[in-house]
């Protein structure tokens, strides 16, 4: 029995390492594609993983303005949120509602991260993360639309539905688009990335360095893996998700598409970013209402 428990622990750690390495490489690929499109050589694809390791071993000191214990606990909360999302979503295929809750928790992490640092740039990043909660509104409506179609919010059931009826992306293209905008808003240098806009240095991460930044970067790598996996599982289904190699390929294609958009579009101002996301939410809500009315 104890050996069995040990196996579960090893499996959990191995999956986390896998998710971080894949997420880190994809974020590195994202930077490389953006750089090549903009005519720059760009960093090596390994750069994200290298940075994470570098920060992990760097000396840490606490800024005099930092509000402890939130300042250092927030990095641990961030990694806990995304590891929970990894196990509950990708490993156990549980409910989309739990994942939505964890995604909302990430906003609290970003806000807390910025405010606890005491830096004006960090605070501004934290405040902008509250604005960018507008990106979650399409998520609520997307979940509603998916429920109307599949009569379930359990990821396993949604994948099984697609085994019979084919990929949901063809039946609910607008819902897929709205979810894709959510993915886009989470990507670095995207038109909706107001939280980490360079005009506010590194946004909510400005004053987090050393091991704390490394932990947040690990969490961001896992987050990227989880979000891409959810998109593939919910909208394309077993065609891609049943084989880990096909899942990897799907993730590379999605990341490349997002990188292309990020490289070719300017960063929106916070009010424009929120307005566009609210517009997409309104259209998704209209789609949901129409489906309810039409039965």
């Amino acid at each position, binding site marked *: 029995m104890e050996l069995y428990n040990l196996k579960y622990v090893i*499996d959990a750690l*191995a999956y986390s390492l896998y998710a971080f390495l*894949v997420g880190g490489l994809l974020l590195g690929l994202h930077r490389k594609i953006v750089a090549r499109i903009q005519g720059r*050589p760009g960093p*090596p694809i*390994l750069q994200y*993983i*290298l940075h994470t390791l570098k920060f992990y071993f760097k000396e840490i000191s606490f800024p005099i303005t930092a509000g402890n214990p939130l300042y250092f606990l927030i990095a641990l909360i961030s990694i806990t949120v995304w590891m929970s999302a990894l196990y509950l979503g990708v490993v156990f295929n549980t409910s989309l509602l739990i994942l939505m809750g964890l995604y909302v928790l990430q906003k609290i992490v970003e806000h807390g991260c910025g405010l606890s640092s005491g830096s004006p740039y960090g605070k501004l990043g934290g405040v902008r993360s509250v604005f960018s909660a507008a990106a979650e509104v399409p998520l609520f409506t997307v979940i509603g639309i998916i429920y109307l179609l599949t009569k379930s919010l359990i990821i396993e059931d949604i994948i099984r539905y697609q085994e019979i009826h084919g990929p949901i992306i063809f039946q609910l293209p607008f819902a897929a688009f709205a979810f894709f905008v959510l993915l886009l808003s989470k990507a670095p240098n995207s038109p909706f990335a107001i939280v980490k806009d360079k005009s506010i240095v590194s946004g909510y991460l400005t004053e987090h360095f050393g091991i704390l930044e490394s932990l947040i970067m690990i969490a961001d790598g896992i987050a990227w893996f989880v979000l891409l996996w959810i998109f593939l599982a919910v909208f394309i289904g077993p065609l891609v998700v049943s084989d880990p*190699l096909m899942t990897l390929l799907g993730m590379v294609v999605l990341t490349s598409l997002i990188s292309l958009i990020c490289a070719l579009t300017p960063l929106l101002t916070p009010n424009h970013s929120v307005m566009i996301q609210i517009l997409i939410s309104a259209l998704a809500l209209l789609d949901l209402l129409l489906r309810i009315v039409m039965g």
Partner: protein
Amino acid sequence: MEEVPYHLLCCIVSLVMGGFLGLTYSYKRYLKPYVERCIDRWALLSAILGGVLFPLPLPYGINYPLSLFLLGVPFGMRPGYGRIELITGVSIAILGYLIRGLIGR
């Protein structure tokens, strides 16, 4: 419950380790920050070996992590370096994989 893809994990860890080796090697070997059309013979040898090893059916599928480790060396080299070597290695690997698939039929 999703099974942990241990085989893919081994492959990705090998690729990253190879990349680290390539990056360290290229920073020690070359001082210029960005040079195109420069072929490094060690990186080319590593890429060709990696490409040849990829389709070989070795026991426990060990050819994939080994091949990715060797391909990781040009893959991880500093910007501008290792491009031609990587393209050569990946082309050999794909060609070998296709030929193996045809023979397998």
